[in-house]
């Protein structure tokens, strides 16, 4: 019994992982084509076909179910769904999401209509139908596994074979969004593969949860990267990991539906990605933004001394830097600063406190003066500022990436020379020491 249990679990886990990889991979491609919910339409569209197949096999042979017939019915009917979707898209002014919703509700309604005729039939057969909607109520079996695995491997192979084409088709140079349905062969291929996977995964997971397998891993991957290869890889890995987690969990709690547990595992991975993802995670971005804003605000404060500094003769400033004092520099009334920067009073006291903690300013009752340390930093900020202005004007094509781009040596030299000729004071050694980043 034990060895059978382990055999069963391992087979199921392997199959489901491969399936998770395939659906994660395919789901990412669909999402990039802005067709995330195609799986929703396909899965709902299977219902009429399943109902008809059921009716036919019931009437013909009084057999409670023939898997093949149900699959065939599902396939035919979902193909009809896709065709109807294409028809709506090309013949009407209706929007994409409207068309999806129409196909979903119409086909599902047709399915319910047909199924309604069967409501008086013995429940054993009806249970088979329920499985298509809710998935297996218990663990998956090895027999399910082989079908799933075969489908998944086939899909992945095809996806990898055509990966170059997908890549070219989806993107121009960098990461650009592409919109709208298209009857090009790539879209057709994506649709067919989705259909294939959906139908074969339906009976394991149920027609509503199957959607999650295409959406969640892709979404989780997007929290970490925007590069397509990494996205595909990560989505596949997320698919595998959550499939394993879910299946193992389900084998421990046999009465809980396997599909739901896999989806919940995916949800967990998504949650983790959402909170901590480096590209889009909320904890990460919030922390980063807060740090940026703090630094920027203190810099803005220092910047408000720029006018004063530029009015002071250069010799005076050099003296102050050498003697490590800033007595010659007048103080700035706080009202003027507030007027310049339009901070709320709460923000203002917070920023002034931060600047004081960093030893940049001295505070009198109504005004602030720069400390010697503050003077050096104010000059640093001024230098950075002027540097950016010069950069933008000499490399206007790169203006938009100024804050991310790292320059090469020639470019840095060029700007350095210009800056030095305009503001020699900014290159005093005490300021050079303060430089971080790669700015000259």
């Amino acid at each position: 019994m034990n060895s059978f249990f382990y055999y069963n679990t391992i087979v199921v886990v392997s199959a489901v992982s491969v399936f998770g990889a395939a659906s994660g991979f395919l789901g990412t491609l669909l999402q990039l084509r802005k067709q995330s919910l195609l799986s929703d339409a396909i899965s709902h569209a299977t219902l009429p076909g399943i109902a008809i197949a059921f009716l036919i096999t019931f009437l013909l042979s009084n057999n409670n179910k023939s898997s093949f017939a149900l699959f065939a019915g599902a396939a035919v009917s979902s193909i009809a769904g896709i065709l109807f979707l294409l028809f709506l898209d090309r013949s009407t002014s209706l929007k994409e999401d409207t068309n999806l919703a129409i196909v979903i509700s119409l086909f599902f309604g047709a399915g319910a209509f047909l199924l309604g005729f069967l409501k008086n039939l013995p429940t054993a057969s009806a249970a088979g139908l329920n499985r298509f909607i809710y998935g297996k109520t218990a663990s998956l079996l090895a027999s399910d596994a082989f079908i799933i695995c075969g489908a998944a491997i086939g899909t992945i192979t095809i996806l990898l074979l055509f990966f170059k084409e997908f890549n070219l088709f989806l993107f121009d140079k960098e990461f650009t969004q592409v919109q709208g349905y298209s009857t090009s062969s790539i879209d057709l291929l994506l649709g067919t593969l989705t259909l294939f996977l959906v139908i074969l995964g339906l009976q394991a997971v149920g027609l509503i949860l199957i959607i999650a397998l295409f959406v969640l891993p892709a979404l989780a991957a997007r929290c970490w990267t925007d590069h397509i290869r990494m996205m595909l890889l990560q989505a596949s890995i997320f698919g595998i990991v959550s499939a394993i987690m879910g299946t193992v969990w389900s084998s421990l709690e046999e009465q809980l539906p396997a599909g739901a547990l896999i989806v919940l595992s995916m949800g967990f991975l998504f949650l983790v990605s959402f909170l901590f993802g480096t590209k889009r995670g909320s904890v990460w971005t919030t922390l980063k933004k807060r740090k940026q804003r703090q630094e920027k605000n203190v810099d803005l404060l220092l910047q408000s001394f720029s006018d004063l500094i530029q009015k002071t003769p250069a010799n005076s400033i050099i003296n102050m830097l050498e003697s490590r004092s800033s007595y010659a520099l007048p103080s700035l009334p706080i009202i003027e600063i507030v007027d310049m920067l339009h901070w709320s009073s709460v923000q203002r006291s917070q920023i002034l406190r931060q600047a004081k903690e960093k030893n940049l300013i001295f505070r009198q009752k109504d005004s602030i003066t720069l400390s010697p340390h503050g003077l050096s930093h104010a000059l640093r900020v001024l230098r950075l500022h002027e540097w950016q202005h010069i950069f933008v004007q000499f490399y206007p094509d790169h203006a938009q990436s100024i804050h991310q781009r790292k320059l090469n040596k020639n470019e840095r030299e060029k700007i350095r020379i210009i800056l030095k000729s305009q503001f020699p004071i900014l290159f005093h050694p005490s300021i050079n020491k303060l430089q971080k980043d790669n700015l000259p």
Partner: protein
Amino acid sequence: MNTSPLSIKNLTVHYDNKIALWDIHYEAPEASLIGILGPNGAGKTTLIKAILGIIRATSGSITIFDRPLQRTHHMLSYVPQRGTVDWDYPITALELVCMGLYRSIGWFRRVQKKHWEKAYHALEQVGMQSFAHRQIGALSGGQQQRIFIARALVQDASIYFMDEPFAGVDAKTEASILILLRTLKKEKKTIFVVHHDLSSATKTFDHIILLNTTIIANGTVKKTMTPEYLKRTFGSSTTLYEEETALQ
């Protein structure tokens, strides 16, 4: 007391994890036609959206006639780029123009005859009155542009922001829009126009803002439209302009 129609200090705007605008300082002149020029992605539309409060600025201040944005919405009006709207929406040209009045009509109150008349009058000003009852999707590009302008006109604003109003319209429409803008200027309004065509900019505007994530230059046409400044703003794409001016 600052009576400048628009005063921007230290504006920074993050967009999509990138810094779209930084270090923007600007004081607008009154009763002027001001062109906003810059290369693709320079942040021209972002600047307008930040001023109107459609996107949130990261830092800095914007004041309209020395008052904050929250209290001066009614003084501003906006003509967006054409592609931003669903043209299948079941409304007519007259209804679209009337939408400019909804806020001033107020919650829970109905649109009355006087409002419809005002909207119709605005359509007349742009020469679109015969299309008043056409569904907006049945209009051509230039016509759609004009009803957007009519919607802005109906608001009786003091400051207008127009995003590429001349894009993709025929010469006749362009001329009529220009006449309209000059009329507005005579009525002491301040009009900002994001513009894409350098050669026509010198003839159209009184003042120019050269923008490329930060303001490179701003002032009168004569002061700003120099080859040097243009080169610094547009970089490699100025060659076209130089050729054009050389031909003239």
